[in-house]
């Protein structure tokens, strides 16, 4: 019988792995721009020593004016100098390392942790949910800075500790949101089907639930980039984490924010980079969500 209507949009083009996803991303101008920014930042982080115009640690003598003030952008220093007469451009480039590790890796871990807890609690419900979500509530109500301070006082400060603190603190909101969403997803029929064919929880959680949660994960993940990069600065300030003279975008802002009326470039440039990073991930994330959601194929 031929009465079965031909489905809409009968193309048989198919997704085939990461390469194809990348190709599709590049086809969208906004996503391509985002990818470009991310690639540039990763490049800057990896090859920092090669592309830095000057030594980011050198407090050069002519880097300060006679009164000891920092130099504005221009001349020998493309983005100006900081309060110690160091080349800001080089410091920002080197700072990309820390900030990417924090904003992307630590935040990524937090997102995964949050998603993991939320999805587990949401799917299993019952006692598992009660324990996990009460723990989440506790973590949410617990002041993150306190945790950071105590860790700072107990451990040797290092990037690892900051990353750890950020991961420990930032998963909470994620987990809340994912929990609620999972609960409603778990009621849906296609999850019931999975149980009826005998799928184990791991399969259901990761193969079937996770893809549907992607859009929330992306929203929270990208929002988290800015907040974690700035949180890193606060933590460094409290003595947990990267210590001077190691630069990060966050701590460059933090060190110099009181000077912003006299030396605005010290705040503006790192701020711009943070916004760019978050925006780039957002653009790519949005596009990725569309590409990975087959029902949205063909719509932009």
């Amino acid at each position, binding site marked *: *019988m031929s*009465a*079965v*209507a031909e*489905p*809409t*949009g*009968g*193309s*048989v083009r*198919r997704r085939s792995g990461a390469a194809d996803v990348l190709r599709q991303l590049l086809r969208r101008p906004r996503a391509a721009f985002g990818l470009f920014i991310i690639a540039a930042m990763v490049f800057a982080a990896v090859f920092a020593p090669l592309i830095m115009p000057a030594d980011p640690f050198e407090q050069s003598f002519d880097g300060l004016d006679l009164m000891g003030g920092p130099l504005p952008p221009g001349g020998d220093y493309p983005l100006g100098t900081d309060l110690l007469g160091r080349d800001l451009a080089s410091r920002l480039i080197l700072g990309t390392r820390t900030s990417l590790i924090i904003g992307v890796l630590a935040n990524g871990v937090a997102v995964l942790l949050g998603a993991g807890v939320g999805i587990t609690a949401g799917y299993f419900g019952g006692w598992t949910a009660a324990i996990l979500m009460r723990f989440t509530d506790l973590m949410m109500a617990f002041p993150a800075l306190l945790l950071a301070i105590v860790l700072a006082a107990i451990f040797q400060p290092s990037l690892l500790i900051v990353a750890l603190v950020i991961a420990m603190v930032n998963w909470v909101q994620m987990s809340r949101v994912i929990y609620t969403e999972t609960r409603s997803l778990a009621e*849906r*029929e*296609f999850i*019931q*089907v999975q*149980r*009826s*064919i*005998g*799928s*184990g929880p791991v*399969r259901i959680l990761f*193969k*079937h639930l996770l*893809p*549907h949660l992607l859009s929330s994960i992306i929203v929270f993940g990208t929002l988290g980039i800015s907040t974690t990069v700035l949180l890193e600065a606060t933590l460094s300030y409290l003595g947990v984490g990267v210590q001077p003279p190691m630069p990060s975008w966050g701590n460059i802002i933090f060190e110099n924010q009181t000077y912003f009326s006299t030396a605005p470039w010290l705040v503006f440039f790192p701020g711009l980079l943070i916004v760019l990073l978050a925006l780039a991930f957002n653009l790519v994330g949005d596009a990725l969500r569309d590409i*990975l*959601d*087959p*029902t949205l*194929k*063909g719509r932009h």
Partner: protein
Amino acid sequence: MSAPEDTGPGEPRPVLTVRDLSVQVATEAGAKTVLDGLSFDLRAGETLALAGESGSGKSMTALAIMGLLPKPMARISGGAIRLGDTELTSLGERVYRKIRSARVAMIFQEPMTSLNPLMTVERQICEVLLEHGAVSRSQAPKRALELLRDVRLTEPERRLSQYPHELSGGMRQRVMIAMALACDPEVLIADEPTTALDVTVQAEILDLIRTLQAEHGTAVLMITHDMGVVAEMADRVIVLRQGRQEETAPVRDLFAAPRTEYARMLLAAVPRLGAAPDRPEPADSRKIVEVDDLSVRFDIAGGVLNRTVARVHAVEGVSFHIRAGETLALVGESGCGKSTIGKALLGLVPWQGSIRIDGQQTRGRSRAAMRPVLRDIQMVFQDPGASLDARMTVGDQVVEPMVVHGLARGSELADRAEWLFQRVGLSPDMLRRYPHEFSGGQRQRICIARALSLSPKVIVADESVSALDVSVQAQVLDLMQELQAQDGLSYLFISHDMAVIEQVADRVVVMRLGQIMEEGARDAVLRDPRHPYTRRLLSAVPVPDPTRRRPDLPETSGVEEISPIFPVGQGPARVELTELSRRHRVARDAMAKT
């Protein structure tokens, strides 16, 4: 180009005239015409049915008239729509707004999601009244109450202050109708107004629309794919197919002598109660499923300590069996526990009692221990769209059970998927598509293919064809029967559609409030119903024959709504079954009354 229809002398002037209406939607592959040159007239007091399979452009027509085509995807690409003297296609949004509801109103298929869950019924109705200045602010509540009375809603005063979720599906649809009729429109468009409802409720709603139409003289454009509904309601019918007008005829003519091949096929596919072929009585073969005293109760927790305060007695002391190669049908109104029984068989809900699948007792099995049993029993769920994962190719989903059970891997899987697709009549080159790229019928085939992949002995088919078009429904039913004939499959066939059941079932179990009311061989139950509840179900089925009027619904005595929720420690009174004959049992309380 179809000429304007001959209206004939003496006929009232048409209130709505549609000429050469075309609608295009933007797709990945460019603009696609989904409605092509549709023309018709609608006169006051008349009911015009727009029939046709899913995707034929029925809803597009309705939305085009309402000026609600989804922007920017869809647009009117040609033609004219005239409401009285007003040309609608060129109307600005501002003016259009004044026409909607005031002159053309519409009710939608899904009463569940069409109402705003956050507003009381009263506010939702008054909103329309006030927006169109039908009454003054102080008069609005009174008028709203009147409207609810008009749509025969029980306890209308109380309903006003209730929220949609506090109402049953039928009640919600009545509210929708009240809202649509609030400003006394000239035209009422009803887009599948009863598809989501129980048969009995459907019968009530259809009755209501008919009555109201008679009272107000409203012209009704009835959109449906159910030929039974068409026969019952329409004066004239337009059959649509892929956006084109296939046939237009007065309803009697169409049913008596369809002129086009397509209409003929459509009508042939309609299951008619009483017209099903006899089924050979299967030999008393092995019992594949034995259910004994099955009860399923859902706890309702509450209070400060979150203790169980009440229980939903979804299934209560049900016993039945299914033999190899046999189809057992489970019928009953929404919420009577049909799906729950199916789920209990697969261990998806906690239950008490005894269930044996091919001799294996499944009581007390953990999820993991249920796995081997699941190879013998599989389930096909009601909504084929919802039971497929939108993010996974159908090919992967069809063989997923085999992956889960470790039965195949690699290229073996691909072969198996192709084979399964062929078995359910799908082309293997569709394997790499995603669910949304299939029609409803195709999706249901995919679900069946998935259920078949483990080669089970029993399939629980939960409302497996309810969501499908008649023609597609017929195909799927055929497929199921074919599979049964080939493999000796057994089915537990869950449905509320008596006509469908008659076609496929060997035996029928009628359920109500979690208990069996009547049980027996198909013919015994459907042709000689003994329980009033069974009779009511049967008489609610629309008759796809405009010459025969469906009998009025019998008295509702003994079938009034009772909640399955009981406080802890209590439960419904157990219904005892008496044996009328070897293959026919009925609840004793009913016997007392007859």
